[in-house]
């Protein structure tokens, strides 16, 4: 339905302590506008980083070109193979030792988005500004949050996390400056309040006290919602309803996690709203990432799934061993299989997010079509600590740019930073040089 007066893109539902941004609605298209004048949805980018490398035998297909059957680890993404691009042979030289000795986990994470070899230290940390922040500096003013930094495990910023490398290196992806990492938000409740609140972060105790009395945040915006709905056509009303329902569902999941955690151990160190289950936590975080993109709250997200070098066990899938020790498998088949299972489990969670993005309509396309979601790691072979042929998958088309459904294998030593250069172009923040780039990555837009 076309109304005479279009709805501003920045329309909010407001209530007590609550501000809910809206997804792109048809009503936001200027009335009587010719199709050619329809504003293009923005391009978003996200990085989903998994640690400790990947069992590459289960990641790399034995062919190039059009994607067909995917290897074991990527099997969960097979339903979306037309929406992904697999890139081979990208290298991060800055992650290598380069005379600094042991510490590949610290280096590979700190250099992943910065392209800079970090200083080996526990105190006076130094890496480089990460490229997501360069983009955020350019386009971040157009959204409520220039960028969001998220994670699921460990946000310690001090201590020795890898052979003399500070935990600031293993626990952050984004760097605001060469000395200022941006610690990820781990707690879904904290993220929820950031996205929909008035900027005040509550303590767990205050949150619990408040939750005894409060209802859904949607209750606080009922008046605005009703008023808005009366101006919308049926399609937009349905879209709005789905959107608000998804927010309500997130609230329920967070509340459930809080309740479960309180029952398990009221004194647990984990943040109050963090689900004990990996998959639930992943889903909660990515559901909110979807909302953040959908409502154009931000266009840039980095998501450190678990921190580099983590020894987290995966009891959810029957693996009580620590992830990192397993990756030094000494070529023992049972250990290698467990690592592959972890890799596959994580890829399955990611596939769930891809499915959600693909199911979220935006104009004539989907949210996935308008995004570039990079899923990958700073090491390829976690046993050898290899920094070449990094596992790199791009989901989405970056706004009708990337020709997906293919595997491209570049020549060896092609810098990962070349991909970042191309992504910066696509995000509207081009630069002449980044990290150790030698140019743009060719072939992303070729069928």
């Amino acid at each position, binding site marked *: 339905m076309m109304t005479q007066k279009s709805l501003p893109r920045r329309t909010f539902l407001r209530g007590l302590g609550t501000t809910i941004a809206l997804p792109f609605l048809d009503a936001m298209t200027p009335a009587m506008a010719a199709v050619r004048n329809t504003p293009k949805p923005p391009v978003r980018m996200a990085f989903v980083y998994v640690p400790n490398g990947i069992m590459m035998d289960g990641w790399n297909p034995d062919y190039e070109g059009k994607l067909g059957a995917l290897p074991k680890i990527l099997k969960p993404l097979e339903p979306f193979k037309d929406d992904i691009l697999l890139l081979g042979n990208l290298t991060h030289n800055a992650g290598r030792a380069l*005379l600094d000795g*042991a510490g590949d986990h610290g280096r590979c994470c700190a250099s992943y988005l910065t392209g800079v070899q970090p200083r080996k230290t526990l105190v006076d940390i130094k890496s480089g500004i990460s490229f997501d922040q360069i983009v955020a500096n350019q386009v971040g003013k157009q959204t409520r949050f220039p960028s969001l930094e998220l994670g699921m495990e460990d946000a310690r910023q001090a201590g020795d996390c890898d052979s003399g490398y500070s935990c600031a290196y293993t626990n952050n992806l984004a760097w605001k400056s060469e000395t200022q990492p941006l610690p990820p938000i781990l707690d879904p409740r904290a993220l929820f309040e950031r996205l929909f609140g008035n900027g005040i972060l509550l303590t767990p105790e205050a949150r619990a006290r408040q939750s005894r009395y409060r209802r859904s945040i949607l209750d606080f915006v009922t008046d605005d919602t009703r008023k808005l709905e009366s101006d919308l056509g049926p399609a937009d009303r349905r879209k709005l309803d789905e959107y608000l329902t998804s927010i309500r569902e997130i609230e329920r999941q967070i509340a459930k996690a809080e309740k479960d955690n309180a029952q398990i151990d009221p004194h647990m160190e984990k943040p109050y709203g963090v689900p004990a289950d990996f998959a639930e936590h992943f889903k909660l975080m990515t559901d909110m990432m979807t909302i953040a993109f959908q409502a154009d709250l931000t266009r840039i997200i980095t998501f450190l799934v678990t921190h580099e070098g983590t020894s987290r066990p995966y009891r959810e899938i029957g693996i009580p061993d620590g992830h990192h020790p397993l990756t030094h498998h000494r070529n023992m088949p049972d250990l290698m299989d467990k690592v592959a299972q972890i890799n596959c489990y994580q890829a399955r969670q990611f596939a769930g997010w891809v499915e959600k993005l693909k199911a979220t309509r935006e104009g004539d396309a989907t949210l996935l079509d308008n995004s570039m979601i990079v899923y990958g790691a700073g090491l390829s072979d976690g046993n050898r*600590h290899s920094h070449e042929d990094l596992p790199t998958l791009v989901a989405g088309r970056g706004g009708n740019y990337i020709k997906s459904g293919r595997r491209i294998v570049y*020549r*060896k*030593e092609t810098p990962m930073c070349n991909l970042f250069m191309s992504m910066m172009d696509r995000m509207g923040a081009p630069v002449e040089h980044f990290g150790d780039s030698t140019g743009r990555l060719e072939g992303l837009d070729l069928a």
Partner: protein
Amino acid sequence: MQFPGQGKPPTGVVFDTDMGSGIDDALALALLHGLAGKDEARIAAISVSYANLKAAAFVDIVGRFYASATTGLAAMFLRGLPIGLANASAAAAPDTPILTAPALAKYPTGIRQLNDTAEVAPLIRNALTAQHDQNAVVVLTGPATNLVKVLDLQGARDLITRKVKMLVISGPSDINVKTGIAAAKRLFAEWPSPIVVSPDGIGEELLFPAASIEKDFAYAEHHPIVDAYQAYKSMPYDAPTWAMSAVLYAVRPQEGYFKLSDPGVATVLDDGRTRFTPATGGKHRHLILDADQKERVIKTYTEIASAKPVERKFRRPPSN
């Protein structure tokens, strides 16, 4: 690779070769592996300016041959060093007798298509980042086309200044310079480190003896250097050693195998000839053949190039 607690490791060698066009580069590669086997050098990177995939595959074959002998692992299971190949389509340069030698088909290689090779400029740049300051040498035995691409990378000139002791260049200049006059001009004008040129006459005077090929390499039933040598020309023949002279000087500059000119400035003329003008403070020098050293040099060539690789202890993968 570094060796904690042992001070500086042996000199890191970047070898940029036009492998395939002549046999001297194959001999130089054997010499380089021999010097690495004696811990006098480390192969930091090898790049090939002869734009033919088989040339890169040959370098890989030789690398695996030596790596297999020193590790005791089968060549087919080894992860070969990445080999750079000039940025051209896979078969831009014509096949040569060396590259198509039927005897080479029996050796395993990991290079079957272009993306099994490395981009030259980042390969060399990355290799230099891993070297101690002033502990790297670059050996150029083909056109300068690859090295000028390194010069064009951001920050590369500072890196070269910091890491590279010298660049050693060998002929034959009528092929190497004339196939890339513009690149050669830029290289001499812009390369930041000292440059030492091994003039054509040195390689032509110091011939590698066919007899060495026939008997010194016999420790292996099949040897890729021997197979390449025999494929290049009808045996027996003695081969010029342009590239060997450059490798030998780069790794053992202190041994007095050659005399060294006074400093000066080398420039490449439009017709491809090189003019050397003595100049105080000049960064360029050239080697001078020392007749008294001729036999010693040839003996060194044959002994080291044909040295049987010695098995070493396996280096454990990182466990941090």
